[in-house]
């Protein structure tokens, strides 16, 4: 099956005042049609940079693409060409992290939704003519029902909505153009726990119903487990493991993944802290970037970067010394 989102060998650096920081190293990631993939990692591991690369919102002056490709539905998203621009807001949409700041505060919610549809939605090309305007209004109205919002929010200003309502509008805007892929960047971090669960299940339900793929970036393992089909784990700009949701919790192979899981609080067990700290982004360790903190480290780990390799069906690990399947996490 061909991938809908296809990221291959993608490397990116940021120019900073104190040197060049290799933020992403040879990222390989694919999202298949109809699939929800979680992109999990600590803050600063490069999740948001991958997302901004796909969406074309990297800071122009400082971001330096070193190599590789990002394609959505076969369209190259890196060159900034017409096809990529036309993909955004049509085949590819976005649910942002901060649903409050992502609205323009000076315009009504309805204005901002209608402008998206008028200019972006498939099948609404001549939305200024009477009949297609009715189609647009009907589509908006149906979508508000689907995300369980009253029609009255269209006449409101963003500051008059609650946090949960704002994120529901964001999901509605992501769904309305009938995209094939939605990128969601930590869409629930600004919300409380109960709202988080509601928003995530709403996102999952709508995506499954409509057959839309989702790339869901989060630092929250539990959230990823709630809604994802597959989970990719990142550490310091490298993808370390990609596996199905079940394998991720029961049969993860990469030492970092195991330690990440062990750091989760669980009844009857103390959470364990991963020793050491996140590497300096300007000078990441050579080879596997996790090697200074890894309990299984050997000489080769700092010499050669392990490549993502299939270790079981649909399960990829980038590690020279992966844990054997079904072994308990025994690093403590």
């Amino acid at each position, binding site marked *: 099956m061909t991938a809908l989102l296809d990221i291959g060998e993608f490397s990116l650096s940021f120019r900073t005042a104190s040197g060049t920081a290799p933020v992403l190293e040879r990222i390989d990631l694919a999202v298949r049609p109809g699939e929800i993939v979680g992109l999990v990692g600590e803050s600063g591991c490069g999740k948001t940079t991958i997302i901004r690369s796909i*969406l*074309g*919102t990297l800071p122009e002056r400082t971001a330096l693409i070193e190599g590789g490709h990002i394609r959505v539905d076969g369209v190259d998203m890196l060159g900034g060409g017409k096809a990529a*621009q*036309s*993909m*955004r*807001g*049509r085949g590819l*949409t*976005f649910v*942002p992290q*901060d649903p409050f*700041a*992502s*609205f*323009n*505060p*000076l*315009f009504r919610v309805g204005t901002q939704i209608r*402008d*998206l549809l008028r*200019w*972006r939605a498939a099948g609404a090309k001549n939305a200024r003519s009477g009949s297609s305007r009715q189609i647009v209004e009907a589509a908006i109205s149906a979508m508000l029902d689907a995300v369980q919002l009253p029609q009255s929010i269209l006449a409101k*200003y963003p*500051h008059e909505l609650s946090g949960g309502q704002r994120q529901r509008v964001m999901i509605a*805007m992501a769904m309305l153009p009938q995209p094939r892929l939605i990128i969601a960047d930590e869409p629930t971090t600004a919300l409380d726990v109960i709202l988080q669960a509601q928003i995530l299940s709403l996102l999952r339900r709508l995506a499954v119903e409509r057959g839309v793929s989702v790339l869901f970036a989060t630092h929250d393992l539990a959230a990823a487990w709630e809604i994802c089909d597959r989970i990719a784990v990142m550490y310091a700009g490298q993808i370390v493991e990609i596996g199905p949701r079940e394998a991720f919790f029961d049969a993860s192979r990469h030492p970092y993944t195991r330690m990440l899981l062990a750091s989760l609080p669980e009844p009857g067990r103390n959470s364990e802290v991963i020793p050491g700290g996140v590497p300096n982004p300007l000078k990441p360790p050579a080879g596997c970037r996790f090697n200074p903190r890894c309990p299984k480290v050997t000489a080769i780990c700092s010499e050669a970067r392990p490549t993502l390799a299939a270790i079981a069906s649909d399960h990829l690990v980038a590690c020279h010394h992966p844990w054997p399947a079904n072994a308990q996490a025994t690093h403590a």
Partner: protein
Amino acid sequence: MNWLSMVANRLLWVIPTLFGLLAIVFVLSRVVPVDPAHLAAGEQASAEQVQRMRERFGFNKPLPVQFASYLRDVASGNLGTSMYTQRPIVDDLASRLPATLELIFTALLLATLIGIPLGVLCGLRRHSWLDHLLRVISVSGLAVASFWLAMQLQLLFSMRLGWLPLAGRIEGFPPDTVTGFLLLDALIGGEAELFSSAAQHLALPALTLALPAAASVVRFMRNGVIGAINSPSVTYQAAMGFPPWLIVWKYVLRLALSTTVTQLGLILGFLLAGAVVVETVFDWPGLGGYAVRSILQSDYNAVMGFTLCTGALVLVINLLVDLLQMAIDPRGSA
């Protein structure tokens, strides 16, 4: 806060503000070492005549008493009589106010017409040659003394090129007064020649006032646009494929305007202050020229009247600006 309660709140502050303003100007004008009674009586006057003048205007009484009786007059709508024109100051001000308003509103219109598009361009093309050029021009535009600029414009357009009149407000008899704005009155009366004459006379003084104001509008719009472009809402819209022209000319423009509008009150205050100089250079029959003459002649009541009038004008302008701000920004942060 809705706009009604905002207006009510502002109106409550009008009286204490104007009172404070009058108190300061009153004290300042009385500590100046000039004897107005002497000036009013004339150079040849005897000591006795000067003394009579003093008693007539009440200068012989203690300062608080003078101030109290002045305030009593003001409260009943009487600003006193000008020692120079011998007319009620209210009449003097009323006959000159429209000329000043026409001048500063035309200057404001010019400043926004020039400043807003240029500011947006600079914000969009930050660090381009246009941005750097306009930054130099706008910084010097702010720094240039307006009387110098006025005289340079007179030299070029009136003396050298002969395109525009040197000074004054109109050639021949003015049109019938309806609004007091000659341009509008000429339009209403359908008098094309008078309109063209009024416009030609207005051009240079309005431009002199408008250029420094345009410079600050450019600065505010530029910074507003840069702030808006870097805001998450614009990043979101770009990621969602909104057309760039829609993002800029609808969403970014409104954000930048909302920050610039808050500065309009300040800009209008500067225009009013600048009008004093510009009206003098161009012999424009407005409040500014009147104020300068009154100050030079120590015409106390006239100076106080001018202060009261412009103070009230600034309060009204700020109120209007805040209402405009509320109309643009629904969050009601005013």
